């Protein structure tokens, strides 16, 4: 028995030793695992723990401002008030929504959507229920605060366009980020963020946007913020100075009025665009707030295309304004000289077709000067017949037609300068002689934008230099926080002001290269343009400025949109005001001033506006007069800084 138990004890001890050994090995495995996790993999898990713990929230940067050359604010930021609702701070979300609905005008559909939003979020996350509150609404909410548990008001930035629609096509607008805009940049996904959707806002979006700051927040497992650990401030977007003069831009918009058209004014030496107006226009503020469906339908359905920047994207036949290019081509190619004259009987026959002059009875014998001044079509039929399309096209392209200038606004169109080769390649037909004649008076296939017409005029006026338009005076700059209002009478270029850092000023000012035209021939064309206004027989005599040293020269153009039948010619050609809008003529005018010492070129196009001399020239006259007055004021300023 004793022996028996001794056996059992021995067996037990052996087996207990094996069991203890096994236990020790398993403990060793635990220690090994602990070593693996806490030493070998420690860095990885430390990172994961930090990622768990720290939630980075972006701080939206302040968007850069856009100002005109005198510092007039075109795109600015305004404080905007938002209403937030935090579900956990109210005992009943529905009651709170019902209480606030009448104050900020929420409809049932919106309330349902808000309820969905709240349902999706954790109950301590504030949900925005309305943006862009008026002061009255904010005050109302403050007064009623005791009855609005869970409601708080938050201040953010909103984009604001103080000039409303006057430069809308240039500035473009900002709008909510759509799914197609996402690039992986988390800033784009922050609530309420806006990106540039059109115009300068779009093309300079990166520069204007700035750099996001961030807040490092410690959060717990359910996402609630425990405390702020660190903060990197956002870097506000860089400002942008346009070469525009808003006074001119506004006047151009005002003069275009209800018409559909565009006005371009540019410095013929530097290429700076002072005015780039397109009408009708739109209110970019509405886009920043979020356009209603009905507003969008009204804008996109309008036959006058308020959303299109007609100054750069409107393609029109140049009409008689093209005669400047044809005249220069004729002189340059030796087809005519300034004294060459043709007889205008009111038409020109080619084969069995008759090409009419706008003046039924004809102009009789006219030289180049009078042909330009009176816009005699037959003179230019003769010239075009002798030149042929390719030689006209070559000069037209040298003057800046048929190409884009990359003005930094999306949507610029190249227009069209046809050639024989072009017609064969694109239309697949041979060029015929009649088309030379039609092209000679700026009709047919030719298409130009108002910007190109201004460039063409500038190149004629500046003595044949290849000036290129530019709209951005300075980008990527930091302007002083507060910009004093410019003196409206004696404005000073913001880039010349002492409070603007020197490095803000971009290059520019380099002398444009010569296009190689003979100065005498350019002078002959300019003389014709002077006569247009100076001579009582000129097409724009009635639009003369009439102030010494501030006179302009120019050329009218009237583009026929419809085909006039022989039957109508035989009875009476219908007047524009007897026709529906879409069939009326386009009115054009190009010009420069002052006559003696040209500085500025202008182009005016009024779509279906009627005659160039009656509709376009008066607009040009007013805008050019103000341009010259403001130039005089600037030049006379005795305390010019910088």
């Amino acid at each position, binding site marked *: 028995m004793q022996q*028996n138990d001794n056996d059992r004890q021995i067996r037990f001890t052996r087996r207990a030793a094996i069991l203890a050994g096994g236990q020790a090995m398993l403990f060793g495995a635990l220690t090994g695992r602990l070593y693996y996790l806490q030493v070998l993999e420690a860095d990885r898990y430390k990172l994961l723990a930090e990622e768990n713990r720290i939630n980075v929230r972006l701080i939206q940067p302040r968007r850069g401002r856009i100002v005109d050359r005198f510092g007039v604010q075109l795109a600015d930021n305004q404080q905007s008030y938002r209403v937030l609702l935090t579900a956990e701070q109210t005992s009943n979300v529905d009651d709170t929504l019902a209480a606030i609905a009448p104050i900020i005008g929420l409809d049932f559909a919106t309330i349902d959507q808000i309820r969905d939003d709240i349902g999706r979020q954790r109950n301590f996350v504030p949900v925005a229920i309305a943006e862009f509150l008026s002061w009255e609404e904010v005050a109302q909410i403050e007064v009623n605060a005791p009855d609005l548990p869970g409601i708080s008001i938050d201040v953010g930035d909103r984009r604001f366009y103080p000039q409303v629609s006057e430069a809308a096509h240039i500035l473009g607008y900002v709008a909510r980020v759509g799914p197609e805009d996402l690039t992986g940049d988390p800033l784009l996904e922050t609530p309420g963020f806006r990106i540039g959707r059109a115009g300068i806002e779009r093309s300079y979006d990166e520069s204007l946007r700035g750099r996001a700051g961030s807040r490092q927040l410690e959060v717990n497992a359910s996402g609630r913020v425990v405390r702020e650990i660190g903060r990197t401030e956002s870097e506000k977007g860089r400002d942008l100075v346009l070469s525009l003069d808003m006074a001119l831009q506004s006047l151009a918009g005002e003069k275009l009025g209800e018409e559909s058209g565009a006005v371009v004014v540019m410095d013929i030496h530097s290429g700076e665009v002072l005015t780039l107006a397109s009408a009708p226009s739109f209110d970019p503020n509405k886009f920043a707030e979020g356009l209603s469906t009905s507003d969008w339908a009204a804008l996109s359905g309008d036959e006058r295309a308020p959303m299109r920047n007609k100054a750069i994207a409107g393609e029109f036949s140049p009409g008689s304004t093209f005669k400047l290019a044809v005249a220069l081509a004729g002189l340059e190619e030796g087809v005519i000289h300034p004294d060459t004259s043709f007889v205008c009987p009111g038409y020109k026959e080619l084969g069995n077709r008759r090409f009419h002059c706008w003046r039924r009875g004809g102009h009789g014998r006219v030289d180049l000067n009078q042909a330009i001044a009176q816009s005699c079509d037959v003179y230019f039929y003769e010239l075009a017949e002798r030149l042929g399309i390719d030689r006209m096209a070559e000069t037209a392209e040298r003057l800046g037609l048929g190409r884009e200038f990359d003005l930094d606004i999306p949507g610029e169109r190249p227009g069209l300068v046809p050639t024989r080769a072009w017609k064969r390649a694109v239309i697949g037909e041979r060029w015929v002689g009649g088309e030379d004649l039609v092209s000679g008076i700026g009709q047919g296939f030719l298409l130009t934008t108002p910007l190109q017409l201004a460039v063409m005029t500038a190149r004629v006026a500046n003595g044949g230099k290849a000036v290129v338009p530019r709209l951005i005076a300075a980008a990527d700059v930091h302007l002083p926080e507060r910009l004093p209002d410019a003196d409206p009478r004696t404005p000073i270029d913001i880039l010349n002001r002492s409070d603007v850092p020197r490095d803000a000023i971009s290059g520019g000012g380099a002398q444009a290269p010569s296009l190689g035209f003979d100065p005498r021939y350019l002078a002959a064309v300019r003389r014709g343009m002077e006569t247009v206004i100076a001579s009582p027989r000129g097409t724009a005599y009635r639009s003369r400025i009439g102030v010494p040293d501030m006179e302009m020269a120019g050329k009218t153009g009237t583009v026929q949109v419809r085909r006039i039948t022989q039957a109508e010619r035989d009875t009476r050609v219908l007047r524009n005001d007897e026709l529906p809008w879409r069939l009326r003529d386009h009115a054009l005018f190009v010009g420069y001033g002052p006559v003696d010492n040209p500085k500025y070129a202008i182009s005016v196009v009024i779509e279906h506006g009627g005659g160039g001399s009656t509709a376009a020239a008066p607009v040009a006259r007013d805008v050019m007069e103000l341009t010259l007055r403001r130039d005089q004021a600037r030049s006379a300023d005795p305390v010019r800084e910088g």
Partner: protein
Amino acid sequence: MARRSGFGRAEAGLLEKLLRLDLLPIILLLVVASIGAMMLYSAAGGNMDPWARRQLIRFGVALVALIVVAVIDLRHWLRYAYAVYAIGIASLVLVELIGTFGGGAQRWLDLGVIRLQPSEFMKIAVVLVLARYFHYLEQDKIGRPHHLLVPLLLIGAPAALILRQPDLGTAMLIIILGGAIFWLAGVRWWKFAALGSLGLAAIPVAWSQLQAYQQRRILTFINPDRDPLGAGYHISQSKIALGSGGVSGKGFLQGTQSHLNFLPEKQTDFIFTMFAEEFGLLGGIGLMLLFACLIAYGIFVAVRCRNQFGRLLAMGLSTSFFLYVFVNIGMVMGLLPVVGVPLPLISYGGTAQLAVMIGFGLIMSVHLHRDQYVIHPGRGV
């Protein structure tokens, strides 16, 4: 020696017994329990309530229970082994009938003043009853399979009842514990192999009996990344907490994973993770060493004991303690599936703590009565 029921030595007086109690295990238990209270204080964000204070008060009660159990003569434990076992089974049945739900399982018995988890006490009862059975089973009879049927039933009955709660972890632990006692009693290797293969064959059947959440836990254990925000979340967050603790830890009350609630059930099953996050590898190994000392004490007592009942009892209880520590720590480290086993003396929970203390009370009782030469083996029941 030939007496029907006798000990080799006369019974010592109560005072003498108290003076002869080992201090070492009591000190070790005190240290471990203090660490537990400290972690419960940390888990509550630096607060004695709701866990640390209550756990300490219960520890005081449990310490008294330990001493009482330790001084009770081993003969009484031998005599009443079946009674204890019967009470355990009865309370498991009661849980089945009138038990309270908690954490997705019916585990608690509400006695008005206290709520008990009978399955915790069942582990002790199983060890007691098996120790008694094998104490009386003669050596040559162990070789006969039909003598093993009774102890298999003694293990199977509580395991089945606990599995029904359902508490897969505890049921598995009782089966493994029973197997260990079989092994210590001298059951041959090949029988384990036979039972093992039978068990493997039963896996598909058992699988179909498991609750969906238990199946999910096992699948998640096999591949934690399968569902990182669902069932695998606990394990992933636990590993992040452990790993980010590094060698020296983040410091007391500084565990980000625990205090920001990324770590689930930090006051119960995942408390070791919290400890190792705050005290690092050094703290983790230190705590495991303390556990190892307690286990070693049990083994030492078992080997020193001069009767089979005491040997099996001490070794069985110490093994039970080991299993709890190993399964819990292995679980939070992602070595074992999440089966809901607490870390003895550290995790919040009164019953588990009381059971561990009673278990050590029994081990100390074995040690106190180690030289008693209990009745001849082979007596039968």
